[in-house]
């Protein structure tokens, strides 16, 4: 059971079950807890090799026990995501904790990843349960429906869930080449039905410079 203690600390109540969390992110606990590192993201040998190859390495530990465990990481804001059989796409570096019942994997994002400073691959979380994702500043959740597609700055994108197609858009014109670009030459366009999580801060991206 995930709940937020303030906006930057995640409290998880455990009754003998387990959660997966980013390595070293525990700040305090009461009761009895055991911490075990899961090599290569805890998806077996194949998952580990895939993660190494795709650059989506995750240092994950399994926390098991009884009591309340508190997680936080570098004072990042934490957002809770409930999954009901759908898939959450999130960067490995923005994923703080997931229910042990959720499956994690990697997927190819195409050209978007390169521009958003995330690499060409992203982490997927699927199943039924809760996950906690981190953002730099309080994230906003934007709904995308078939009538209302959404364009997002690649540097501010953190995660999305639901049935969404994404396209990479560029607004490069002659002004950009003159060095008069607006800094918003690249966007990700989401179409379909789902939610997109956007943070009020931008990572350094190739797209942000032009």
């Amino acid at each position: 059971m995930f709940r937020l203690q303030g906006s930057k600390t995640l409290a998880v109540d455990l009754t003998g079950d387990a959660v997966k969390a980013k390595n070293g992110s525990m700040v305090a606990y009461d009761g009895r807890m055991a911490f075990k590192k899961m090599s290569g993201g805890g998806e077996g040998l194949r998952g580990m090799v895939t993660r190494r190859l795709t650059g989506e390495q995750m240092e994950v530990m399994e926390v098991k026990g009884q009591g309340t465990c508190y997680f936080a990481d570098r004072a990042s804001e934490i957002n809770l995501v409930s999954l009901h059989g759908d898939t959450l796409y999130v960067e490995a570096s923005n994923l703080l904790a997931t229910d042990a019942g959720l499956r994690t994997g990697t997927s190819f994002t195409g050209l978007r990843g390169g521009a958003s400073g995330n690499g060409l691959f992203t982490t997927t979380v699927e199943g039924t349960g809760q996950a906690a994702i981190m953002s730099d500043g309080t994230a906003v959740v934007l709904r995308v429906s078939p009538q209302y597609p959404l364009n997002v700055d690649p540097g501010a994108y953190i995660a999305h869930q639901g049935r969404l197609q994404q396209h990479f858009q560029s607004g490069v014109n002659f002004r950009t080449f003159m060095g008069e670009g607006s800094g918003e030459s690249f966007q990700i366009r989401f179409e379909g039905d789902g939610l997109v999580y956007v943070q009020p801060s931008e990572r350094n991206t190739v797209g942000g410079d032009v």
Partner: protein
Amino acid sequence: MPFREINSKMVEASVEPGRKMYSQRGAMLAYRGDVSFTPDIRGGQGGLASMIGRRVANEATPLMTVEGSGTVMFGHGGHHIQVIDLAGDTLYVEADRLLAFDGTLRQGTMFMGSQGGVMGMVRGQVTGQGLFTTTLGGHGSVAVMAHGGVVELPIAPGRPVHVDPQAYVAHHGDVTNKLSTALGWRDMVGRGSGEAFQLELSGNGAVYVQASEEKL
């Protein structure tokens, strides 16, 4: 209640004649009224012996005394500030986390070895607190800095709280702490979960934990 939180990163304190206040040197942001700031070479209360004690213990944060009448705003480095009210009990905190405190509080230095002997000293080294920590006792308020927000966790008898040493900020009450290790063979081969050392606090009181594992 001399401290008033303006936002999560600034506090306002009211100073009256005859009511001194200590603050970290350079932490004043603005003030109203007739207030004077005097650097305190001794680094706090007590006489020469206390000063030497603090120097030796490396707990000598540059402090200044704030006197006069008016209101002063304090803040430092954009760190989050937590105001802790003490009613007769003792707060244990690292000197560099202290932003400001009431002059009515007794300031002291505690040797980590006095709680748990050699293990206490080892604990101080592991947690980065060093061999000494600062204590504040009596009645009054303290403003403590932390990176990220602070969560207060109550400690009750029979319900000890374990804290990551890097996220530990301060504790008060009748609390004994010891370092518990969960070192396994996995840590030896570099496959540790990153939670090998924990601070176990038991007794009666509260511990303050920051939402980050970064030191100030």
